[in-house]
């Protein structure tokens, strides 16, 4: 058998030519489809695939507030607890912070009875919160019947201010501000009372053995809102 050394001899052979033609035709059609998809249908997506998206991150806030009273005996410490479940059913989202105003008056009714000494303290446990935040106010005390304000920041880095962020996805930023771990558990307020007796305390009819403490609390809830800034 003579040995044909040209490539063309292979292509022009009947069945080789057919397979060659079939493959070229399919390849041509397929690459036309690919080029149309690449340059027309998906051009914007492909051009922007590596662009960094910008997002405006905003927050919707809702404040839930309520009050309770606690009767604390002389020399005793009572606890007042608060959790997400204490908010109304309408409350939504993450817990940003919890503030408490503790107030009391001298209720013995005795003449010249001075205010009792009241100490309030929130131990940094029980609820998952931003306990390391330097702006937390976890303890106070007084004996002049003035209000005491305590504050616990629950969601780390939350300050309620809208801001812009670059990169990642919309879902990512929603996720950053949707960690329900923060605010889970129970917040405990410990209240201690030391009764200051009135000058007439030696009389048998005078009795100042406890104090009613008013706790006004408010929980700030928030929900993140993310909007793309890219047109």
């Amino acid at each position, binding site marked *: 058998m003579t040995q044909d050394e040209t490539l063309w001899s292979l292509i022009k052979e009947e069945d080789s030519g057919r397979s060659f033609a079939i493959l070229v035709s399919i*390849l041509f059609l397929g690459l036309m489809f690919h080029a149309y998809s690449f340059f027309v249908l998906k051009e914007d997506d492909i051009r922007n695939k590596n662009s960094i998206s910008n997002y405006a991150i905003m927050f919707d806030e809702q404040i839930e507030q309520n009050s309770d009273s606690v009767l604390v005996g002389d020399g005793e410490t009572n606890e007042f607890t608060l959790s997400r479940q204490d908010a109304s059913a309408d409350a939504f989202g993450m817990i940003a912070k919890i503030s408490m105003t503790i107030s009391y008056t001298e209720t013995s009714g005795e003449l010249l009875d001075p205010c009792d000494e009241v100490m309030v303290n929130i131990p940094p446990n029980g609820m998952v919160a931003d306990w390391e935040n330097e702006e937390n106010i976890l303890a106070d005390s007084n004996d002049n019947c003035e209000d005491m304000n305590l504050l616990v920041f629950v969601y780390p880095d939350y300050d309620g201010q809208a801001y812009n962020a670059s990169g990642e996805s919309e879902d990512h930023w929603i996720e950053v501000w949707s960690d329900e771990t923060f605010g889970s558990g129970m917040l405990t307020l410990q209240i201690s009372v030391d009764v200051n007796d009135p000058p007439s305390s030696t009389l048998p009819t005078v009795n100042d053995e406890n104090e009613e403490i008013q706790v006004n609390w408010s929980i700030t809830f928030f929900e993140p809102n993310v909007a793309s800034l890219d047109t």
Partner: protein
Amino acid sequence: MAVDGLLAVGGILSLALGISGLLLVRQSLQEIIWNKKFGAQLLCWSFVCKGVANGVRSVGYEVDAWRFVLYSGHFADQIFAGCMVLLALIFPVPLLRNKRQFKFGVIAVITYTFLSMISAVFLNVNTPLAGLGDAYIVCGFIWATVYLKFRFMKGHEDDKEIQGVADVAILLFIMVIGHILFRWVGLFALSDYFYFMDIYGGNYTTDYLWSMGLASAVIFGLVICLGELLQLIRGNIRATSYVVFTYMLIGMVGHIVLSGTGNSGSGGGTSAGSDYSPFQEIWTQITSAVHFTMMRPIIGLFVLFRYGLIRISEDNQQVGKTMSIVLIVVATSALLEIVQSLMPITEMLSAGILGIAIAFGIGWEERSFQSLISDPIRFPLRKKGTYFPEVVFERTNFITLDKAVSAAILFSLALSYILYMSNVNPFE
């Protein structure tokens, strides 16, 4: 194991196969037809290149010498592509059919590869010339044509030798392109995970040329799959048909898994993109990354022995067996590492399983190695002389090829080092 670990294993496997394969070719005393002998050399050198590329990239780009990692990986890939194109031009069917054509083909491939490297050095790494997926387009086209020609050759449907040519064309095609077939549905479903694949990004024309190479690979894959479906209907199914069906089926499942993902990593989608979910990362790891790093050397080993590119005799049997054992042991341990990363099993248990797996693997290797080398499939030299021209090459010609490719690899490494030391910006 992270994908980087897989890259390291893939690098070791490829280097082991490439270097031991070259030793076997050198030691082989039996007469082998010229295109198979050159084919064996090119296949082995291509694995050495991939070993270098995967090995350096396994370090990652978060190192001081990231320029060296980038350039040496890039250049090694370009030499790999050149070897693959040259392989496709001579094996399984020589399209370069005499010495003059062969010399012209080699010069053309070397020139193209050199120009690609130069454009990466003097322009940047993502120029269109540096980004053309030539290995996918040229090799895919040639091997798909050979497949169609020999698989559907009239009157030879049961001829094992004729069908063997189609089989090896499929295997080589799968070896080079298989990881892209895992994403074939994305081409037609306009999925981001397909169209977002690029080499380095930043140049739309380069991105298109690269994507076109991937699209070509998918089209050739579909042609072969349809051809095998036709043969299935006719009752002519072969072992390689199952390989094709498996890759295409994984591609269909992969579409379900990867739908909705955006950035797809780089290259041929062998690594997970930045926004992949953990499951999508695992999927990419156990499909594309495993093919890219482990299946390629294993398919290469099979082709080398099964189709007689390397003939094993008493002189070189020990090297051949060592080569197979190294590949099997490393691949088995890497696979087990992947399983360990997916399933919560203790290190003690996995070490035990590894021991058992390797014991079985080596036992299996003893038997399969014998059957692999004992009866290599011969191409129809005498039946169809038209397709397999006899060309006489001197022994020095084969040695010259070895010297040329090894010089190219050393040159590319030295060039990468110079570019690294010069603080060149690869993207400007």
